[in-house]
C-alpha cells in the first residue's frame, strides 16, 4: 500500500473534501453506511483527490462531550476505503481525544492520509502521532486549528515544529470562520515563505468569506484547499467544494475536479441528508464574529433550549473565555451560570417583586 494516488492529475492545488468528517457536525454524527458509499462514489467520480472521513471531532470523537456516532466510525471508514477507486481516504485525529492506536487501526482499513489536528499554539503534543503516521507509511498532515488565535509569526513557529516531526503538509484551519481575507493572506504568506513543505487552508463560512479566503490562500501559495459538499459542516458551514471548484474554473485554476459532478453530488446526495440548509443565521454569524469554534453551534442550541437562556449570550461568553476546540463541556457550564444569573436577577428585580 502506498500513499500515491493511482491516477496522477496535474492540478494547481489539491482539494480535500471533508463532507464525511467536518460535515458530520451538522448532522450530529449520524452518518450511515449508505450515505458514505454514495458520497464517496460521487466525490470520487468528480475527481476529488482526497476524501476525509471520521467523527467530526476526529477519530475517537464519539462521546458525551461531542455527541455519539450513530455507526462506529471504523465501519464507515472501511466502507469509504472499499468504495473509493481513485481518491485517497484520509482521517483526522486530535491528540487528547483520539489515540495513535486509532491511526494504526485505520491504516489497516486502507486509510493513507492522517491529519493530525491541534490547537494553533500546542503543536508539540503531536510529535508521537505524526511519527506513528509516518512509520505506518501514511502522508501526515499537520493541522493547526483556530488559527485566527495566533499571529503569522506564531503560526510559523508552530508549523516548524510540525515540519520537524515529519509532517508532509501543514494546514491552518479557520475553525471559527473568523478570518478576513487579509488575515488569511498574511498567515499563508508567512508560512509559505518559512516552510519547506506545502501549505493548506481549511475555511469556514461564518463571515461569508470561505470561498474568497480559499482563493486568496491559493494566490498566496497554498497548494491544498478544504471544502465540503454543499458546505455541510460546523457552524455556518465549510467552504462549499462545488462552489470552490466552479470559482476556480472561472479563475482558470486547474483543480482536476468536475464542478458539474460536484454540483450533482451536493444537490442530489448531500442536500437531502441535511436537517437544514447551511445558512449564516445569527448564531452562525456570531461564531465568526466572536471567534468561537464552529462545532459548538448545535451543542449551544441544545443547551440554550434546555436551560432557557439566549444562545447569543452563550456564544459571546464562550468567546470572552477564549475556549478552544474540544471544550464543548464549557457550553453547559456557561448555560448554567447564565441561568443562575437570570434567576438571581428575577429575584431582585423590583418589578417582579411587586407583582
Amino acid at each position, binding site marked *: 500500500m502506498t500513499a500515491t494516488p493511482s491516477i496522477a492529475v496535474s492540478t494547481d492545488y489539491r482539494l480535500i473534501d471533508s463532507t464525511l468528517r467536518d460535515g458530520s457536525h451538522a448532522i450530529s454524527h449520524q452518518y450511515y453506511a449508505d450515505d458514505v458509499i454514495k458520497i464517496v462514489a460521487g466525490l470520487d467520480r468528480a475527481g476529488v483527490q482526497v476524501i476525509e472521513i471520521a467523527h467530526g471531532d476526529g477519530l475517537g470523537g464519539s*462521546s458525551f*462531550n461531542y455527541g455519539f456516532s450513530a455507526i462506529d466510525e471504523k465501519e464507515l471508514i472501511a466502507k469509504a476505503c472499499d468504495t473509493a477507486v481513485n481518491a485517497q481516504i484520509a482521517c483526522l485525529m486530535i491528540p487528547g481525544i483520539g489515540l495513535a492506536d486509532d491511526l494504526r487501526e485505520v491504516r489497516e482499513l486502507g486509510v493513507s492520509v492522517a491529519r493530525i489536528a491541534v490547537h494553533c499554539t500546542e503543536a508539540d503534543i503531536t510529535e508521537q502521532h505524526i511519527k506513528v503516521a509516518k512509520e505506518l507509511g501514511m502522508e501526515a498532515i499537520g493541522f493547526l486549528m483556530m488559527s485566527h488565535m495566533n499571529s503569522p509569526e506564531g503560526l510559523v513557529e508552530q508549523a516548524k515544529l510540525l515540519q520537524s516531526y515529519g509532517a508532509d503538509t501543514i494546514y491552518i484551519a479557520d475553525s471559527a470562520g473568523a478570518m478576513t481575507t487579509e488575515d488569511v493572506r498574511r498567515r499563508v504568506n508567512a508560512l509559505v515563505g518559512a516552510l519547506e513543505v506545502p501549505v493548506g487552508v481549511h475555511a469556514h463560512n461564518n463571515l461569508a468569506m470561505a470561498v474568497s479566503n480559499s482563493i486568496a490562500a491559493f494566490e498566496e501559495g497554498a497548494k491544498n484547499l478544504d471544502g465540503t459538499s454543499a458546505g455541510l459542516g460546523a457552524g455556518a458551514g465549510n467552504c462549499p467544494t462545488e462552489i470552490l471548484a466552479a470559482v476556480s474554473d472561472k479563475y482558470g485554476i486547474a483543480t482536476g475536479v468536475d464542478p458539474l459532478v460536484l454540483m450533482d453530488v451536493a444537490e442530489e446526495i448531500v442536500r437531502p441528508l441535511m436537517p437544514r440548509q447551511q445558512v449564516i443565521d445569527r448564531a452562525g454569524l456570531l461564531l465568526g464574529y466572536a471567534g468561537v469554534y464552529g462545532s459548538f453551534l448545535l451543542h449551544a442550541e441544545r443547551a440554550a433550549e434546555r436551560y432557557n437562556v439566549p444562545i447569543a449570550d452563550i456564544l459571546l461568553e464562550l468567546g470572552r473565555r477564549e475556549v478552544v476546540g474540544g471544550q*464543548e463541556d464549557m457550553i*453547559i457550564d456557561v448555560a448554567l451560570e447564565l441561568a443562575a444569573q437570570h434567576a438571581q436577577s428575577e429575584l431582585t428585580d423590583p418589578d417582579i417583586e411587586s407583582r
Partner: protein
Amino acid sequence: MGLRCAIIGSGNIGTDLMVKMLRSEVLDLRALVGIDPDSDGLARARSMGVEASHEGPDWVLDNAGEFDMIFDATSAYVHVRYYKKYAEAGITAIDLTPAARGPKVIAAVNLTEHLDAPNINLVTCGGQATTPMVHAVRRAVDSVPYAEMVSTVASKSAGPGTRQNIDEFTKTTSTALREIGGAETSKAIIILNPAEPPIMMRNTVFAGLPEGSDHEAVLESIWSMEKEVAAYVPGYRLKNPPVIEEGPYSTPGGVVPHRAVVLLEVEGAGDYLPPFAGNLDIMTAAAMRVGEAIAEHRGVTA
C-alpha cells in the same frame, strides 16, 4: 519520628511537594533529588534547609538505609527504569508519573486498599480529579454503564512529560474511571488551553445513569464527594451545581435515559506553583494524603 522520605525530581511537582511535606508531622522530608545542580528546585531546597542532591535516583539507592519512602516526580521513563530497585532496597515508592507499575490509588476512593504495596501509582491529575466523581455516582446507582471525563488545563501548566505522552494520560485516566471509579466503559479527553491569564484546571465528568436511578441520591452523593476531596485538596470545588440531563444517549455501554454532568474546578494551593496549576496541586496533595496514610498505617504518630 516520621517516615524518612526523599522526593526524586526537582521540577515543578517535586518542589511543590517539598513545600507541602515540610508541613507534615508524619512525613520527615530528608532530601530533594534532581539531576541539575543549578535547578531552582534544588536551590529552594537548600534555602529551606533540606538536603539537595543532583545525583539522581542512584544517590537515593546508594543511601538506601536512610530512607523509608520515596516520591517519584520524574517521568514515566525514569520510574520504569528504577521502580524495581527501590523495591529491592526496601523503599516504598509513591509514583506521581503515569508509569503505572504499582496498583492505582485515588486518594478519595481506595486510599486504604494498598497501604502495604511497595509501589503505588497516582494515575494522573485528571484521574485524581474525576475518578472520585464517577465513584460518587456509582455508589448511588446500580451501575454506571459509561463514564467520561474531559480535563482542560492551562498550557503553561502542561509540562513536556504530558505533552510527549498525551495518549498515556488518556489511557491511564480512562482505566482508572473503570477500575476505581466503577464505570463499565469509559473515555478520557484532555485539552490544553493557552488563554492568558492562564485558566484554572477544569474537569467535567459525564456519567450515564441507567433506568430507575434515584437522581436525588446521585446529586447528594456528588455534593458529598466534593467535601471528601476538598478535605485534602482545598481548591477542589463544583463550579456549578451538578445536573442530570435527559437523553437518551447511545453510549458504548448501552443506551441510557439520563446522564449526570459534574463541572469541577481545581484551584492550586499556591505552595510553589501558581494557583492556576490545580492539575499539579491535586497530584502533590494526593501524594501527601497517600504518604501520610501509609505513615499512620505503620504506626507513626505526630
